[in-house]
């Protein structure tokens, strides 16, 4: 089956709220602090080493891979994902929930080569339009023992879970900063994570079973979020709480 390749992307940022102004200022200070001391560059370097490392039965590196802009062209390629690819290579599943795989480091390196490029995911191909449409439906579909959809938490402006402000991910203003900052270093578990992982973590909190990595479901959601938030210059890999 053909599908859209999403080199891992996901969700959690902020929109302002009138309450608890002091706490908000403190949280902003904390966010600045963790960004200043972020080890993101180390993950990018590991990814760069992997990109050029010759390995496997063909003793080949990834350096001539075509991520959509031509063989070996990395600059700006990440900002144009998710995108439909005809080849079958994208069907392989990478990584898992608990342990970072080499894929995450590669995503750090590749995403970093798009810094400053406006997020411009694929929208023209019928497969891309179908992925967006499926993602939109998944976003609003209530399910599971707690009857949640993505929109249960990310549907109205100015809402919080505890002190955490919730971006409205069905809006340009809410989704833009989110898709422009994943993948990211996650301070709370000291790991480099993808947006796909973050979407799965929402499913965990929704009390749902687990979406399969690189499935059409996760790619459709990433496509919906990225198309909704397109236009922001990419400024990741980010650093999240």
């Amino acid at each position, binding site marked *: 089956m053909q599908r859209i390749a999403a080199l891992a992307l996901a969700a959690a940022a902020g929109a302002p*709220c009138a*309450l*608890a102004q002091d*706490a908000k200022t403190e949280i902003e200070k904390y966010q600045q602090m963790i960004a200043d001391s972020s080890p993101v560059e180390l993950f990018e370097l590991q990814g760069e080493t992997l990109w050029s490392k010759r390995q496997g039965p063909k003793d080949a590196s990834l350096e001539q891979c075509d991520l959509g802009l031509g063989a070996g062209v990395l600059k700006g390629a990440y900002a144009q994902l998710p995108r439909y690819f005809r080849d079958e290579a994208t069907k392989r599943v990478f990584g898992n929930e608990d342990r970072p795989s080499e894929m995450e480091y590669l995503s750090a390196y590749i995403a970093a080569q798009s810094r400053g490029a406006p997020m411009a995911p694929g929208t023209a191909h019928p497969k891309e339009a179908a992925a967006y449409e*499926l993602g*939109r*439906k*998944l976003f*609003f*579909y*209530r*399910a*599971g*023992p*707690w*009857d*949640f959809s993505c*929109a*249960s*938490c990310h*549907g*109205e402006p*100015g*809402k*919080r*879970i*505890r*002190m*955490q402000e*919730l971006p409205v991910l069905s809006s340009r203003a809410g989704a833009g900063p989110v898709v422009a900052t994943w993948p990211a270093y996650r301070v709370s578990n000291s790991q480099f994570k993808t947006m796909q992982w973050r979407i799965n973590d929402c*499913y*965990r*909190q929704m*009390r*749902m*079973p*687990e*979406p*399969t990595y690189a*499935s*059409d*479901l*996760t790619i*459709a959601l990433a496509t919906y979020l990225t198309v909704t938030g397109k236009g922001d210059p990419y400024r990741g890999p980010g650093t999240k709480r």
Partner: protein
Amino acid sequence: MRMTTALRVCAAATALAACADTPVAERHFSSESELREVQAVLKRDIHARGSATLARLEPDALQQACNLNGNAPTEALAKPLEAEQMATIRYPAGSLTGDWKRGEKIAQSGRGLQWNDGPKDVAGGSCYNCHELAPQEPSFGTLGPSLRGFGKVRGNTPEMQRYAYGRIYNSKAFNLCSQMPRLGQSGTLSEQQIKDLVAYLLDPESPVNR
């Protein structure tokens, strides 16, 4: 596409209810076949993990009605379904209120039913994720209405205990497409835990009311 606001739904909802918990209504599915399409994708692309089994993906009549009607079903559709939800509530014999101190711990805890929760983990109500309760706890969410002073305003009467117990057990019995989880019906909280939450909400000694 039909758009309504949560406000109108709230005005129609029960006067007892701390309201504003219905999502902003907007239709995203035009037919049951569109819902089946999404359900097929979920079944194909989601796998069981820990306690989170695939049985959780089976939609019930309520979820179908809320998804299909942009969380704003007509009264004619909602009333019988609300009655069905009301029938799921198992009120215990005797007192409906417990210990507010235990209730506070339950209100604070966000554990339960997640795939990383172990079999020995005791579930909480995740109340503070969405509601303001005691003024001493500044870390509260705003997805649900503030419940600060809940019992002070309403009184710790048997009728109010019954309402609070039912609302926690199955919020959908009172407002079909409420955003609040059905904490008793879903098996998240036990009878005793819900009684303790009733005390946390209504007991005059509870910090919620002081």
